Every structure is written in structure tokens, then in C-alpha cells.
């Protein structure tokens, strides 16, 4: 069975919500829709306080090359545009809307019928994806329309659909593949037209045999779409690792996946592309796994963007009294939240509730030079060395040791028997080295 070669770990999977069907979450009383929900520049608000908006109405426009449009996820009244705390703990501007009813934009096709026929041209597809605010739903939230505009000197050969979901606990992509497979495949066909590629692969780890079987059955009639079962290994959902696992090609250090002729999109993104292109539905809701062993009713919920985390947790049985940490995203790369009022954004794949006794780091010992951090690094870096260089403020040396190649997957820190905060150092070092590089370019 295929997988990537270098490094990787296998954390306990804990996919406790794998057999919980996606359920629609009722609308909250109020949503806070951040203006910065994708990689790139924040979007510019188009509504003022007091404005009445409909579900799916454009409320903020992405104006620079890498930015995306944002739509209202509910109908109601804009009560204010104010700064709120986001998942990383910073204050960021958001449009706050009080929900009244649920009146959708007339342009959205709300019928249940699956629209198979693709009528739009390549340019029209990209334009629609851009207008309707589709971004990568795997976590990095890179605007999808930008990804689809392949530079003229590069050639896209393969579309790779990421159904790996290698993070422990998360099952939103898994459920989507089981319940919306036909739509996902149409989304893939749309993406293939947009990219002008003849071959697409869907990579799924073999801890989801039902999804592999289901999608394999449905893609039988398409010769140019194949499902690839992958051996379970974290971080296989990383673009570079997934390309390596499926095609054997290696994205060069410091370069983008297109160098290998591959474009990677998440299954959730493929579904959002289907909804945008075929149903004219903007990206204003997504599937979020709300999970944790202490939760009484964990599940997979279809949630409107901007709903507060505590609202989701209430519907998953309420916050257990022994909770010590709440993670937005998975336990390997997710962010620990400072507050439960943080809204769900386009990039939120899951909420993991961690009991108090499991929410602390292990004690730090001296490094015993066991080299496990080096063995598990999927990039082949020496995390222990990079941490030492950063601690000693030797940033030039850290740059030469390729610290910028670190993808922050956390495998090193996960595996370190001495409990050393390797990734903390790597992040610090990357920030410093990034500054040095920017200054060098400026001068």
C-alpha cells in the first residue's frame, strides 16, 4: 500500500465520530463572521451597521490577488462590525449579524437534485469559484481560484484530491466522502476542467475502508479518476507528502506543488466547488467534527460560518466539567482556543475537547540524542539542531539548515521522549529567519 517514505508518526486515531452522520445544526441567535478567513489579505466589508442581509449575500470582498469573498451565513441584521477574538487569540475585525429567519439569496439553487451536467467554461468556473468565496477547506484556507490559475510557464498534469484526514479525532472529510460522494466527484470533474488536467487521484487512508469502497464504486465509470488507498501515517495530508505518496514525485525545497505538475485540493473543497458552480451556493457553511472522549454526544455537524464554538459544543452534549483545553482543528496541528466565543470559520475542520488531565504537556528532560525527532521529520530536517540554533539565536545557521522547510506538522515534538518543545523553537526560528529573508529582499 502506498505512503510517503520519509519520516512520519502514527498517533492514536481516536476517530470516535466516524459513524456519526452529518446533522444540520439549528441556526444560532448571532453569528460573527471574521473578515479574514483565508490566507492572504483581509476582505473589505460591503455592509454597514444596521444593514439587512440574506443568507448567501456577499458581505465582504477580497480585493488583492490572494484574498477571498465572504458571504453572510444567515439572514438578519448587521448589529456591528467590530473586533472579536479569533482562534489564534488575536483581535480581528468581524461582521456580527443577529439572525432573523433564514431567507436565502434567490440566486441559490436549493433543490435537492444533484446537477451532474457541467455547462460552464474553464474561465466561468474559476470566476464563479472566486465570486462565491471558495477556499481550501483542509485547514490552510488558500483561495481556491488562485490555486486554479496555473502560471503560464507551469503545466498541471494531475489533480490530487485530499481525503486523507490524517489528524486524529477528525471525521468531517470522512463523513462527507460517505454522504456527498456524488457531489464530490462532480466537484472533481469541475476542478479537472478548470485545471485542464486529464487525471485525478483521490487519496484516502485505509482506516476509512468504507469511504474507499464507496468512492471506488462511484468512480468506476470515470477512467481518469482513481481512488488511491494509502497506508495510515501522519502527516500524509500534507500536500508534499500526499503528492509523494501518490505520484512518487517530490516537491523541491522552497517550491510549490505545481513544480511536480500536481494540484492538491481537499475533498471538502471539491464539495464546496460543486455547490458553488452547480448550485450557485457561496461557501457559508461547512462540516465540523465536534469531538473528544469526554463529550457525551460527539458528532459531525453542518454549521454556518460564524457560529460560536460554545454553540456547537452545547449541541454535542455540552462542555464537560473536567475540560482543560479546547482545540480548533486536530490535536497535531490545531490551535488551543483562548475562548469558546471564537467563531467557526471556513478553515475550521473540527473542535476537540480535551479533559484537564490530558491538556498539559509532559515534563521536559535533557535531550538524550535519541534522534527520534530526526527519524520522524517528514522533511528530513534535524529538529533538535534547529531548536538549539534558534535558542542560541544563530538564525543564519538555522536558515542554512533549512528551517524554512519545516511544515510545523509537530511530529518531532509529538515523538520527543524528553518532551522538549521542539516545534515552539522551530516556529520562533522560522519567524526570525523569515524576517531576515524579507529584509534581504528589501535591501
Amino acid at each position, binding site marked *: 500500500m502506498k505512503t510517503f517514505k520519509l519520516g512520519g508518526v502514527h498517533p492514536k486515531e481516536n476517530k470516535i465520530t466516524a459513524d456519526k452522520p452529518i446533522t444540520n445544526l439549528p441556526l444560532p441567535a448571532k453569528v460573527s463572521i471574521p473578515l479574514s478567513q483565508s490566507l492572504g489579505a483581509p476582505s473589505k466589508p460591503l455592509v454597514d451597521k444596521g444593514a439587512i442581509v440574506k443568507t448567501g449575500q456577499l458581505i465582504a470582498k477580497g480585493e488583492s490577488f490572494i484574498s477571498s469573498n465572504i458571504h453572510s451565513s444567515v439572514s438578519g441584521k448587521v448589529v456591528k462590525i467590530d473586533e472579536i477574538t479569533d482562534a489564534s487569540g488575536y483581535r480581528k475585525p468581524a461582521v456580527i449579524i443577529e439572525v432573523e429567519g433564514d431567507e436565502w439569496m434567490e440566486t441559490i439553487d436549493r433543490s435537492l437534485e444533484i446537477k451532474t451536467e457541467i455547462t460552464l467554461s474553464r474561465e466561468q468556473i474559476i470566476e464563479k469559484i472566486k465570486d462565491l468565496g471558495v477556499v481550501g477547506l483542509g485547514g490552510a484556507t488558500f483561495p481556491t481560484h488562485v490555486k486554479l490559475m496555473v502560471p503560464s510557464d507551469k503545466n498541471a498534469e494531475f489533480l490530487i484530491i485530499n481525503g486523507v484526514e490524517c489528524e486524529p479525532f477528525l471525521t468531517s472529510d470522512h463523513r462527507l466522502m460517505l454522504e456527498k460522494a456524488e457531489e464530490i466527484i462532480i466537484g472533481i470533474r469541475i476542478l479537472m476542467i478548470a485545471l485542464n488536467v486529464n487525471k485525478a487521484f483521490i487519496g484516502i487512508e485505509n482506516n476509512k475502508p468504507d469511504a474507499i469502497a464507496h468512492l471506488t464504486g462511484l468512480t468506476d465509470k470515470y477512467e481518469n479518476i482513481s481512488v488511491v488507498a494509502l497506508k495510515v501515517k501522519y502527516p500524509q495530508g500534507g500536500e508534499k507528502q500526499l503528492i509523494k505518496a501518490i*505520484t*512518487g514525485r517530490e516537491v*523541491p525545497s522552497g517550491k510549490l506543488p505545481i513544480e511536480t505538475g500536481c494540484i492538491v485540493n481537499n475533498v471538502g473543497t471539491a464539495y464546496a466547488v460543486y455547490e458553488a458552480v452547480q448550485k450557485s451556493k457561496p461557501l457559508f457553511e461547512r462540516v465540523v467534527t465536534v469531538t473528544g472522549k469526554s463529550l457525551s454526544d460527539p458528532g459531525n455537524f453542518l454549521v454556518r460560518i460564524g457560529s460560536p464554538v460554545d454553540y456547537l459544543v452545547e449541541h454535542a452534549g455540552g462542555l464537560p466539567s473536567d475540560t482543560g*483545553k479546547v482545540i480548533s482543528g486536530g490535536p497535531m496541528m490545531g490551535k488551543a*482556543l483562548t475562548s469558546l466565543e471564537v467563531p467557526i470559520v471556513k478553515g475550521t475542520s473540527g473542535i476537540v475537547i480535551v479533559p*484537564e488531565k490530558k491538556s498539559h504537556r509532559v515534563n521536559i*528532560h535533557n535531550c538524550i540524542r535519541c534522534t527520534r525527532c530526526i527519524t520522524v521529520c517528514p522533511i*528530513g530536517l534535524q529538529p*533538535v539542531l534547529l531548536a538549539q540554533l534558534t535558542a542560541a539565536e544563530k538564525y543564519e545557521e538555522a536558515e542554512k539548515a533549512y528551517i524554512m522547510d519545516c511544515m510545523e506538522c509537530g511530529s518531532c515534538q509529538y515523538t520527543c*521522549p524528553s518532551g522538549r518543545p521542539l516545534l515552539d523553537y522551530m516556529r520562533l526560528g522560522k519567524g526570525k529567519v523569515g524576517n531576515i529573508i524579507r529584509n534581504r529582499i528589501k535591501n
Partner: protein
Amino acid sequence: MSILTVSGSPHVHGQQDVRSIMYGVVIAMIPAILVSIYFFGLDSVRVIFISIVSCLFFEWLIQKYLLKGPITITDGSALVTGVLLAFNVPSNLPSLIIIIGSLVSIAIAKMSFGGLGKNPFNPALIGRVFLLISFPVQMTTWPSPSPMFSSEIVDAVSGPTTLGMLKEGLMEGKTVGEIIATSGFPGYFNDLTGAQGGSLGEVSALALLLGAIYMFLRKIITWHIPVAYLGSAFLFSAILWLIDPESYLDPVISMLAGGMILGVFFMATDMVTSPMSAKGQILFGIGAGLLTITIRNWGAYPEGVSFAILIMNACTPLINKGFKPKRFGSVPVQTTIKAAKKG
């Protein structure tokens, strides 16, 4: 819920920590401990006990009164050093000498460099070599194995060791064939089971291999150093044996005799003092293998494992500089595209 813990990812941690690794090594040494007690009786218990207690005591003493820092004697590393030091000495070694060995291992070889993880040389081996040089007679007077429950009373003071008999015989001008034929020469079976003279932990290759398998399964050690070490030592002694079987021991018994198995699996694999990249570890193993056979055949001592490993420990920083791990994306993209097409 009153306060949320906020920390950077990852929010989960793997199963292994320093303690589980160190205690894993101790568990892997249990078969050899049992064999040593079987053959050397309560003397073996005495040596192991004194070595462990004094190693722990000296570490505690230094951390408490000299460094005035946190006490970390429960992390298992001093325990491993204690057992390993005991494994490397004869079972009839006077208690005071064991205590001196422990002091050298812990105070000089480990704590003076900053404690766990900072020592360039394997502490137990430094202790052993110090004792070997300081107390050569006591350190090379091996008691004969006298299996428990056997009615046979053995009163021989000095038990024969494969390598000791070999060195002595060769110096007397005998051929290897004649030495092997001498009565009392341990041979394959005794080298495997442990019914021979020798340091108390090294006598039974079988018990040590059992522990090594456990460490492999628990992923405490990797194959690189042991395979490179045994492979190069085997090849080197095979070449010598093929050239002149009258002067050199055959490669199979060379692997089983002396401290080879103990050194290869329990001391050369010490994470702290061995290289960090796979290639570096292989080089380390090859170097140690060649040195061991060189010292055994042409050195003053019959056994060369300790010296070989210590010399390679000294080379480790250099090896680390020379061998970096293979980096993702370091080859031109066309190469991987072509390779993928072929494969």
C-alpha cells in the same frame, strides 16, 4: 471548566518518554541478570546491587549538594549505568572497587559534562576501563561458573574465557586449533548459554540477544549500529580466519565470545553517545567492529569492545557533522518524476 490551557500544537504526545526508554533497557537486561545469578550466585546479586545503589547515590549526591538543582535519579539513566557497569566486571570484584567504578561512571563520565544526554562517552564503559587500568588483576580474575543446584563443587579460582585463553595460547606459540582442543575452552555452546568465565553480564550471548529482541520490538534501538557493528566485525574476522586459521579465531565464535554481544546491543547503541543520522550510525558501527577485531588480535588486551566503542564515541561529533539526514525535496523534481515513471 474555569481556565483553558493554551499551548502550541501538537496537543498529544507519543507513548515513549525518557523513563520508559531507560526502564525498557533495564527490562531487556533481566535475562542476562538471571543467567549471571544462575552461574555466579549471590556474588552476582551483590555486584549488581552495589553498582546500582552507588550509581544512584552518587547522582543524587551531586545533584543535591554540588549542582543544587532538580533531582532526576528516577529517570532510569543512572539505573541503566549501574546495571551496565555491573555487567562489565567480574562477579568476585571487591565491593569497594565497584563503588569506585560507580563514582567514576557517574561523577566523571556523566555529571561533570552536565548529566543525562550531555556526556560524550558511555559512562559505564568509562567506569569499566578506569577499573581495568587501575585494578588489572581484580578485573581479569574471572570466577568459574558454578550453576545453581549443581552438586559439583567448583573451586577453581579462575574460570577460562574464550578470548583470554586464545591470547595466552597464542603467546605461548600454540595454534588456534590446539587452543580450542585444550580442556576447559568454552566453545560455541558455552558462549551461547553463559557457562564460562567472564564479566558477569557478558557470558551468555543468548540471554543478551533475547533482551536485544525486546529492545527492537519496543523500538528502543534501531538496526543500524548492531548490524553494522556485527557485520563489519564478522567480515573482518572472517577474512583473517580465511587467510590464516592457525592464528585467528573463526568469525562465529568471535561474535559470541567476550563482550561482543553486550557491547553491540547495549552499549554501542547508547543514544547519547552514538551518531544521529542513519548513515552516521552505520559508519559508527563499522568503525567499532573493525577496531574491536583489531584490538583483540593485535592489542595488549584480549578484549577490545570497550575501547572500540569509546574511540567511536569520540568520533561521534565529527560523524554528526559529516552526515546529515536525507532531506525531502533536495533532488531536482525531474529526477523524482523520472524515478516515479520507472517504478
